[in-house]
């Protein structure tokens, strides 16, 4: 288990709070009155069986879904729904369960795309690719090269990402999210479909991001070993409801969680 201890993080500053969020698609309720908080600097895991509403929760946080009820408080500002643009501007970055990269573009360009909001030169200079726009391009390129070094993907920076193996695509996607210099990083199953070695690499990157940059991370993961090793606190969802919330040990011992995962004999 990692320091700081759960009771200390609970006392620290809340970066994101969701309150009583309810989301349904027609008659299907994906989330029912879910509330929890994410504290600054922690790694918060969201777990639950298939269809529990984990990805829906991330989509609500970064504004892809607009919940029918509930409130989202991010960096002290409360709103009913988030918009994708507002989330990105506010420093929320994310990766996707099934990797959503710009397949025809190189790894470098994919990560550069993460700098979109940091680059401000207008249309005119861009069209000429001259003067301030060129200087700006150089500055951001340097930043992106740092990320490429950090993720150890120097060798593939000019390769179209569609041609890369899955594990490397996941890494490029993480790089694109990091290029946004996020305050809150949402990772949707960062290790799905990876072998043991790739999982260890990815775990190391996640811990490094958290330690070095102090980035708050919310992650969905199915591999319980990974969840227990990485996270400070865990939220458990089942059928759209929150059934447990606490430190990894507390959650692991919770009878409701065990029932949800193993099924109950009635």
């Amino acid at each position, binding site marked *: 288990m990692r320091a700081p201890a759960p009771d200390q993080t609970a006392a620290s500053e809340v970066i994101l709070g969701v309150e009583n969020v309810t989301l349904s698609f027609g008659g299907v309720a994906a989330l029912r009155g879910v509330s929890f908080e994410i504290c600054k600097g922690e790694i918060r895991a969201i777990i639950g069986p298939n269809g529990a509403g984990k990805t829906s929760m991330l989509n609500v946080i970064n504004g892809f879904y607009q919940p029918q009820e509930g409130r989202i408080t991010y960096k002290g500002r409360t709103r009913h729904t988030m918009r*994708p643009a507002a989330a990105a501007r506010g420093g929320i970055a994310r990766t*996707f369960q099934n990797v959503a990269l710009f397949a025809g573009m190189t790894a470098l360009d994919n990560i550069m*795309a993460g700098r979109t909001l940091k*680059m401000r030169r207008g*249309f005119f200079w861009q069209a000429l690719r001259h003067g301030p726009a060129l200087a700006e391009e150089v500055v951001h390129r340097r930043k992106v090269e740092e990320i490429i070094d950090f993720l150890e993907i120097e060798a593939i920076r000019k390769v179209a990402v569609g041609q890369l193996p899955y594990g490397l695509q996941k890494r490029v996607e993480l790089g694109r999210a990091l290029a946004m210099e996020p305050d809150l990083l949402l990772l949707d199953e960062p290790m799905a479909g990876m072998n043991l070695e790739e999982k260890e690499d990815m775990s190391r990157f996640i811990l490094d991001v958290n330690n070095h940059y102090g980035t708050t991370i919310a992650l969905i993961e199915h591999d319980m070993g990974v969840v227990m090793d990485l996270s400070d606190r865990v939220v458990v969802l089942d059928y759209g409801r929150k059934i447990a919330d606490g430190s990894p040990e507390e959650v692991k011992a919770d009878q409701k969680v065990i029932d949800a995962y193993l099924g109950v004999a009635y």
Partner: protein
Amino acid sequence: MEILYKILIDPFVQMVAAPDLLAQVVWEGLVGGVLYALIALGFVLIFKASGVFNFAQGIMVVFAAMTLVGVYEILRGFGVYPTDLAAYLALALTFCVMLVLAVAVERLVLRPLVNQPDIILFMATFGLTYFLIGFGELLFGGNPKVMIAEQLHLPRGAIELKILGGFVSLQKVDIAAAVVASIMVIMLAVFFQSTRIGRALRAVADSHKAALSVGISLEQIWVIVWFAAGVVAVITGIMWGARSQVEFSLQVIALKALPVLILGGFTSIPGAVVGGVVIGVGEKLGEFYWGPLIGSGIESWLAYVIALLFLLFRPQGLFGEKIIERV
């Protein structure tokens, strides 16, 4: 044997025998090719940035040309003088109309269809085509109009080159079209390759949700790209209109852009140009030297045959991005 001689040898003998004629034919082909390239360019812009094959690009060219001439006539009706002031004012207003069109398309067509399959967006551009035909005829009437080339100070007349033991005549307006097209192509290619907005355009084409997650505004990108295609349409409309007249039936030239795109690749701006030139020159050479063998008329279908061959052997075109599908 005689037929083989006529197909394989005789045309080349003719070419060598009259090089000035060959040069003239190639030049005509180049000119036609530049115009094809301009239309294809409009397609490529929208395809690159939204993955949508915009069937309405042809009618956008006609609509732009109609608007230009129509607005000019209205301005003249209000007594704006001199004529060239009215012409340039009309040009500026036409660009404004294309901007309004881009915003309207984004609001009314694209925004409600976000995340729908490409085929749905493609069908929507069909709807847009018929709307623009009807709307254009309502505003400007169905009669052909004459492009205001003279008032816009497009060069007139021809340059007679005395080369290759004969005369080759080059229309100045064609030279102007080639120059304008080259400048536009270079600017667009550089813009797309390595600027923030260019990268954002390509990003949107690949994945809507990933683009949203890094803070790219789909609305803004779509307006930019449809406006860019609108600007290309205005320029194409002027150049094409200066060679014939401006009428709604001209929108079928959009179909000629298809073989150009298949040849050059749907995602490549330089490809659109090379494709246009190859199709233009190939068409004219085929018509002039091989056409008489089967009683002419090759020009109208040769391009499609070339495109078919490309589809068989190199479906991504000469310059297109490799088609990568992982399952």
